[in-house]
């Protein structure tokens, strides 16, 4: 039975952590391998690559969300000086299709426009200016059709359908226990409807890719992306090529967060078609405005709740109904919904659960993958409801959670899965509360009046690591390890670095397993011709899956390395140990030979010094109809507590501090891990309070960093981190992913802190000043003034009505 003895906690705020130790680099703070080149400006992103004769691509896109395309006038575009190609759907050599899961999305519009940003034509020209000028001159002949912009309305009878078969894409469910009986038992019931806005990734590097054709036979794509294997498939499909003829190399990627999961396949397919048509290299870099308009977003959702608890605060039942706005194409929306559905209840024990998650087509922005993948929205709702229940029960929100979280004895989740390993929910709650000074704060915050109020709130998440059962066929990964004659090591993995630290993690794991210094290990960005399809770099699976594949490769390499070392050492192969850059004899640490010498000996004897590695997750049982079973292989828990100050007159929120307790299994690279948590918190905070996607008939009305405001250095809260390490997770050396658990609870914690400060409930995200002021209603310090203005407006409207 896992117990507290087997867990240990490291408080990072006070603990500088080892830079590296006698036990190897694992958990240390050695330099990230990519940092020096990046800081010197010598890392080449796609926009920094150019080839002789290279053309620049541009896209002609729809300004309207719904229309029939009757034709395209291209003469003016073709006449622009420097233009070499203007292509339409008819020019696509293979299939005109880029849907990643379901074939509902053409690369270029044939007859029907379904969203602003749908592509009509592709342009290639000798300068970017000429290309975009020509794209602007492409004239579509459009007959506008009615559109639908509200996902709930889209599901009503009579709503204009986007595709054949209506607007309901799919419904996912979890059905467990007897809700009717449990409802009768509940002493308090909370009902709520949460309106939760989407989010733009705002990676600093816009979408970018470069295609290099070789006759019409094969092609290389260099692209800023998370999933080179997705891009490979998409390009092969539009060009009608076998997969082996499409080589996709991941360029250094300037941020992804999910925004470079599926979407990069679209620009890559565009440049591929242009490169084949012109026979020249073609590069595309999306202007920020178009990038923000057309690329995928975190889904806007509506979540309805009815949750009940007994007098003692034990949850009795939870009913959740969620409607997700997919936009005009499915993309990854069903996959996101699958995770949202399974994550709806959180780390709580609830005897009866009924969850329904609907995915709807609309003519809005394109919903897709974004850090947390549907879990942040449902977690926000669940944590808001927990606080409402606490207020109704007059119970400390921390205490209410303590009474309901899963633990080592009661470890069955809402989907009926028994959690493997130690269940650290209470541990995370308590550690975050201690870091934040929860009890002290509550003791002194009784007299919270005056214009600036302080509050504290909790967010707690149970995160299913790796891919959902539904995506299991993709859940495998590949690695290649080459020991060079000088003892340095090449590592290739199929998962990508996008800033999160996958190179550092892969380097650390390989160095640890080979007993060498991380500095001698070079991890190169993936390329589809050097490693096997490893699925997408998502779901916080990068370090986990590539790490296990690397360990497998090193295990195989050692079947050839150890005998050579044994000969040099005069021992048996099974006595060889690798550590501190030395091979040594177990039990006789004074008998050593440098690993580098073993490597040169292997080279001299022409022994194969390359090994491949593979990892796949174990099959699990899951029933998609009822949502019961094991959707995920294992889970991570995180608790964050936010302390905020709210100006109740202006509705302005300042997040002062976030205290984060994370169950990470084992730390691989301490700086990368902390960086993920700090970055996730700030991105989650932005979503919570300032990042609002303003829509005007499906068009993004604020497609710029001035109008869509992401946090700056001046907005960043103080972040305190404590990690709970434990034995038993299945990742490399027991590590669990941290990239998404870092963001998921933040917005919930901020919301609960703001509501704590103001004594009101806010059921809408983001908590922008107008939302906060509106929620205050009569409690706003100037409510009398606002109500007078409302009366005025009524009278004015009445006048208008009368005057006609």
């Amino acid at each position, binding site marked *: 039975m896992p117990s507290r003895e087997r867990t240990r906690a490291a408080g990072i705020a006070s603990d500088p952590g080892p830079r590296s130790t006698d036990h190897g680099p694992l958990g240390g703070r050695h330099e990230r391998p990519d940092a020096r080149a990046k800081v010197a*400006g010598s890392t080449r992103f796609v926009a920094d690559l150019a080839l002789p004769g290279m053309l620049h691509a541009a896209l002609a896109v729809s300004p309207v969300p719904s229309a029939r395309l009757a034709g395209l006038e291209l003469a003016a575009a073709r006449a622009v000086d420097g233009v070499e190609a203007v292509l339409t759907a008819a020019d696509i050599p293979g299939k005109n299709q880029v849907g990643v899961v379901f074939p509902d999305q053409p690369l270029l519009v044939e007859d029907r426009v379904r969203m602003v940003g749908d592509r009509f034509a592709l342009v290639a020209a000798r300068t970017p200016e000429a290309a975009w000028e020509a794209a602007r001159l492409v004239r579509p002949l459009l007959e506008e059709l009615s559109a639908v912009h509200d996902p709930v309305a889209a599901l009503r009878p009579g709503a204009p359908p986007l595709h054949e078969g209506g607007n309901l894409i799919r419904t996912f469910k979890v059905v467990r226990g007897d809700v009717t009986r449990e409802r009768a038992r509940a002493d308090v019931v909370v009902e709520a409807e949460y309106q939760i806005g989407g989010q733009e990734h705002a990676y600093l590097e816009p979408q970018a890719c470069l295609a290099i054709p070789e006759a019409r036979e094969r092609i290389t794509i260099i692209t800023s992306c998370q999933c080179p294997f997705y891009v490979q498939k998409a390009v092969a499909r539009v060009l009608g090529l076998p997969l082996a003829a499409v080589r996709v190399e991941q360029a250094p990627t300037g941020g992804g967060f999910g925004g470079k999961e599926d979407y990069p396949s679209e620009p890559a397919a565009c440049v591929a078609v242009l490169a084949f048509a012109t026979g020249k290299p073609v590069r595309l870099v999306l202007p920020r405005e178009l990038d923000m308009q057309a690329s995928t977003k975190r889904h806007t959702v509506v979540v309805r709740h009815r949750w009940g608890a007994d007098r003692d605060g034990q949850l009795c039942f939870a009913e959740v109904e969620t409607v997700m706005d997919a936009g005009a194409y499915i993309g990854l929306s069903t996959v996101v919904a699958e995770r949202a559905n399974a994550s709806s209840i959180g780390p709580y024990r609830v005897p009866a659960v009924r969850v329904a998650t609907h995915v709807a087509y609309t003519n809005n922005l394109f919903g897709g993958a974004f850090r947390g993948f549907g879990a942040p929205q449902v977690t926000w709702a669940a944590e808001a409801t927990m606080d409402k229940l606490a207020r109704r029960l007059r119970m400390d929100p921390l205490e209410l959670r303590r009474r309901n979280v899963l633990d080592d004895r009661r470890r069955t989740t809402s989907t009926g899965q028994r959690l493997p390993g130690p269940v650290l929910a209470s541990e995370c709650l308590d550690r975050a509360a201690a870091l934040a000074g929860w009890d002290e704060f509550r003791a002194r915050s009784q007299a919270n009046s005056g214009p600036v109020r302080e509050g504290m709130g909790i967010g707690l998440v149970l995160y299913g690591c790796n891919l959902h059962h539904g995506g299991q066929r993709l859940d495998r990964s590949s690695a290649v390890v080459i020991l060079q004659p000088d003892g340095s090591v090449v590592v290739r993995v199929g998962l990508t670095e996008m800033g999160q630290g996958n190179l550092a993690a892969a380097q650390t794991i390989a160095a640890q397993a080979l007993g060498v210094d991380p500095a001698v290990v070079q991890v190169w960005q993936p390329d589809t011709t050097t490693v096997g399809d490893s699925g997408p770099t998502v779901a916080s699976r990068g370090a986990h899956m590539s790490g296990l594949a690397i360990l497998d490769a090193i295990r195989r390499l050692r079947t050839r390395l150890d005998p050579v070392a044994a000969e040099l050492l005069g021992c048996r192969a099974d006595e060889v140990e690798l550590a501190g850059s030395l091979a040594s004899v177990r039990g006789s640490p004074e008998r050593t030979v440098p690993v580098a010498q073993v490597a040169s000996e292997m080279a001299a004897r022409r022994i194969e010094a390359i090994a491949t590695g593979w990892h796949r997750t174990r099959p699990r049982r899951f029933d998609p109809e009822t949502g019961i079973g094991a959707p995920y292989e294992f889970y991570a828990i995180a608790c964050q507590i936010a302390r905020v100050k709210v100006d109740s007159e202006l509705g302005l929120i300042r997040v002062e501090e976030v205290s984060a307790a994370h169950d990470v299994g084992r730390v691989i690279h301490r700086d990368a891990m902390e960086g993920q948590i700090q970055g996730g918190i700030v991105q989650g905070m932005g979503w919570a309070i300032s990042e609002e996607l303003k829509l005007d008939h499906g068009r993004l009305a604020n497609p710029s960093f001035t109008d869509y405001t992401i946090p700056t250095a001046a907005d960043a809260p103080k972040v305190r981190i404590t990690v709970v390490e434990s034995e038993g997770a299945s990742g490399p050396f027991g590590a669990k992913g941290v990239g998404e658990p870092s963001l998921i609870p933040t917005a919930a914690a901020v919301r609960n802190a703001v509501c704590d400060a103001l004594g009101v409930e806010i059921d809408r995200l983001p908590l922008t000043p107008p939302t906060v002021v509106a929620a205050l209603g009569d409690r706003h310090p100037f409510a009398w003034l606002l109500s007078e203005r409302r009366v005025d407006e009524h009278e004015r409207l009445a006048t208008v009505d009368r005057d006609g």
Partner: protein
Amino acid sequence: MAERVTVTLTLNGERRTFEVPPGRRLLDLLRDDAGLTGSKEGCGAGECGACTVLLDGVPVTSCLVLAASADGHEVVTVEGLLQAGRLHPFQDSLVTRGGVQCGFCTPGIAVTGAAILARGEADPSEQARLLSGNLCRCTGYTKVIEALQDSFAKGGHAKS
């Protein structure tokens, strides 16, 4: 032949002359004409700071500066922060303190940070305010500010 203007500037300590169209942005002169691709374009609208360079020692977003207006002035890019191939103290602290993730914002942050150090600003919240024109979506800024503090403590402001 389209109209051209002559721009002569001191670029990373070297006097250089370029013939460019009158509307050319300083960012394009740097990246396309001078081949210095360290300065990045994240927005092209003066909002993200990825293109930050020093113009006569002051950080500016080079996507909003006309190349012609740099004529006769001194420009330092991220490449120019290095001295004899060695990283600037702040760049070094960014590396050792984990202040670099995807790296796209990093050149601009390095340049602005170098200016903050040169100005001798030691207060972390003032440093954060001065950095607020440089967006970073990855780090959450904590380690960037820690790196500034670190290079300050090591006397980086005196050396720069």
